[in-house]
């Protein structure tokens, strides 16, 4: 599983190990250099010391190499096993040597530092030539000894690391767990919630690293809650609005059932037919409204011919208009008016305006698309009673019906037109016309067009 704790642990332990290994490597190389420097200095010093002892004649030089051994052994006892010393005469005979020194010359070099292999052992040797005494002093130690010295230092480091790293891992584990507490608290708080609980998470005392996440979650909760609230109120409204026509239908049906009078009977049945028509239109509009509220705003991409859209919507409504004896006049003498609109929303708005106009018109409905500089407008006019001035503001709200209402209206048409226009960045404006009737305009700003 992908876990932050696991990742953090891997990263922290990995970097810790890397640092330790780097440190050990660095210490190894620097110790090696330091050991070389110090031991070389010791070789130099020891050689000089032997040389000066020889010069002061504290050590007698004899030709017999074997007999001189004890004297030197005493003088070089301090360096036993670590340092070896040989004193050669310049002509190549061994004058003296320390106990640990081999019989063969430690080096072929005449002077200074050199490395040579004697008896399979690599020696680091410092040589001083003393021409006055006619001797050459060689002091050397083995590289094996030097390596062991460095190895001991590194071994100490590795041992302490082996003990410290498990402790470190434990500490890292605890720290990571502790550091992740706010995150696990948040996860806990979220997983404890029921699906319906959408109250915002507490944002006080949240570390600033997860504050943006909490804020985003809270904003999402807010949006979901608002959408649900809209849905709830819409459902309540829809249920309410459907109950009244249902009550009307039922009452008319009961009238039809209980009456023996043919005229009453026929009237009731006619009312039922009209009522069903009205109710089905209401249902359609409710569905349109629900779709409108649920859909996301879509970018208006296509450049549409408004004349074409107007003609297609009008064509759909012609049969309805003719059954009501109302003429629809489309003024298409103007040039082709084009605008960037989402056709689905525009058609919805226009159809509802035209249906509304047909509901109220006495004899004629006029529709026309106009290109007017800043605005592209589609105007729908009827010759009905218009809307009372105080109601003009209110009628675009959902389920509001003016006093000059039709038999078939639902109080949703203008609301749908308004919301659909808002969806395409346009607007709906209403005003009464002289002498009577309503002018409804769908306006689309040129910038958006």
């Amino acid at each position, binding site marked *: 599983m992908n876990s932050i704790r696991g990742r953090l642990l891997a990263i922290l332990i990995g970097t810790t190990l890397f640092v330790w290994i780097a440190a050990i490597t660095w210490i190894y190389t620097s110790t090696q250099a330091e050991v070389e420097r110090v031991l070389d200095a010791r070789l130099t010093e020891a050689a000089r010391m032997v040389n000066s002892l020889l010069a002061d004649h504290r050590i007698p030089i004899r030709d017999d190499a074997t007999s001189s051994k004890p004297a030197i052994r005493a003088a070089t006892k301090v360096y036993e096993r670590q340092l070896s010393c040989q004193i050669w005469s310049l002509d190549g005979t061994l004058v003296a040597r320390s106990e640990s020194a081999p019989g063969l010359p430690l080096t072929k070099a005449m002077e200074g530092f050199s490395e040579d292999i004697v008896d399979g052992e690599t020696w680091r040797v410092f040589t001083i030539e003393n021409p006055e005494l006619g001797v050459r002093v060689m002091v050397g130690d083995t590289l094996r000894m030097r390596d062991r010295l460095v190895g001991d230092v590194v071994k100490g480091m590795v041992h302490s690391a082996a003990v410290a790293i498990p402790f470190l891992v434990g500490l890292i584990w605890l720290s990571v767990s502790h550091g992740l507490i706010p995150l696990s608290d948040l996860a806990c708080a979220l997983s404890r919630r029921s699906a319906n609980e959408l109250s915002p998470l507490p944002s006080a005392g949240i570390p600033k690293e997860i504050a943006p996440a909490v804020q985003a979650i809270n904003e999402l909760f807010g949006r979901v809650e608002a959408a649900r609230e809209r849905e709830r109120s819409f459902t309540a409204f829809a249920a309410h*609005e459907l109950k009244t*026509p249902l009550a*009307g239908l039922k*009452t*008319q049906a*009961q*009238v039809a059932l209980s009456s023996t009078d043919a005229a009453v009977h026929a009237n009731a049945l006619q009312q039922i037919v009209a009522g069903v028509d009205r109710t089905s239109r209401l249902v359609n509009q409710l569905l349109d409204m629900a779709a409108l509220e649920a859909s996301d705003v879509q970018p208006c991409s296509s450049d549409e011919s408004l004349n074409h859209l107007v003609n297609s919507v009008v064509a759909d409504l012609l049969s309805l208009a003719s059954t009501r004896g109302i003429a629809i006049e489309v003024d298409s003498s103007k040039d082709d008016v084009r605008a960037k609109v989402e056709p689905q929303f525009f058609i919805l708005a226009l159809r509802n305006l035209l249906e509304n106009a047909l509901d109220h018109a006495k004899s004629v409905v006029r529709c026309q698309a106009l290109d007017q500089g800043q605005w592209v407008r589609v105007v729908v006019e009827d010759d009905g009673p218009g809307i009372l001035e105080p109601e003009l503001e209110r009628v675009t709200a959902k389920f509001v019906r003016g*006093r000059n209402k039709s038999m078939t209206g639902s109080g949703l048409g203008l609301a749908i037109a308004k919301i659909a226009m808002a969806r395409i960045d346009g607007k709906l404006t209403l005003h009464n016309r002289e002498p009577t009737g309503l002018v409804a305009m769908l306006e689309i700003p040129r910038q958006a067009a």
Partner: protein
Amino acid sequence: MRILIVEDDPLLLDGLAIGLGLKGFTVDAVANCEDGRIAVRMHSYDCIVLDVMLPDGSGLDLLKELRAAKNCTPVLLLTARDQVPERIAGLDAGGDDYVGKPFDLDELAARLRALARRGAGRATAYLEWRGVVLDPAALRATKDGVSLKLTRREFAVLRALMERPTAIVSKAALEEALYGWQEEIESNAVEVHVHHLRAKLGQDFIKTVRGLGYRLAEEGA
């Protein structure tokens, strides 16, 4: 029994007016608060059916106005908003009954009769006077157990008289009980109906009080 219906939905208003008319009510129907206010001022009703959501305001406001003006006409609230808090608000505003949409026409009629009965302070659903029994629900009348054949208008006149047997009911009040606004009042209709009723119930059942109106004869008079 004359009732006022205030309801803005034309389909329902038409159905109620005709349907309750068939159940023996005399119905006045209006579609908004303002018209309702005028109707209540002009006539006294036995009962009012009031929608809550009206185009020019809330039916509850109209109801509160009525009660503030000491009008005790029983009011039945008829609304799609039938959740408990809304019912409580409606009843507390002065409503006498609360019916949610959609409803049953027969039940609505029965509730209206019950409201009118309670409004008139009577205990039984039947009206009874000197062996004549009126069943307003079934629109049936009997005299000494024998069924009477009455027209709708005759029944309405008899009911108006039997609701307050000893009181004098004016000719205008009887006309009001008989006709809604939409109906043309025939000039001597009340006299004609009383004449027919006397023929069916006995000449002395209904007395004419000269210059004032009609009342039922007292027991043994």
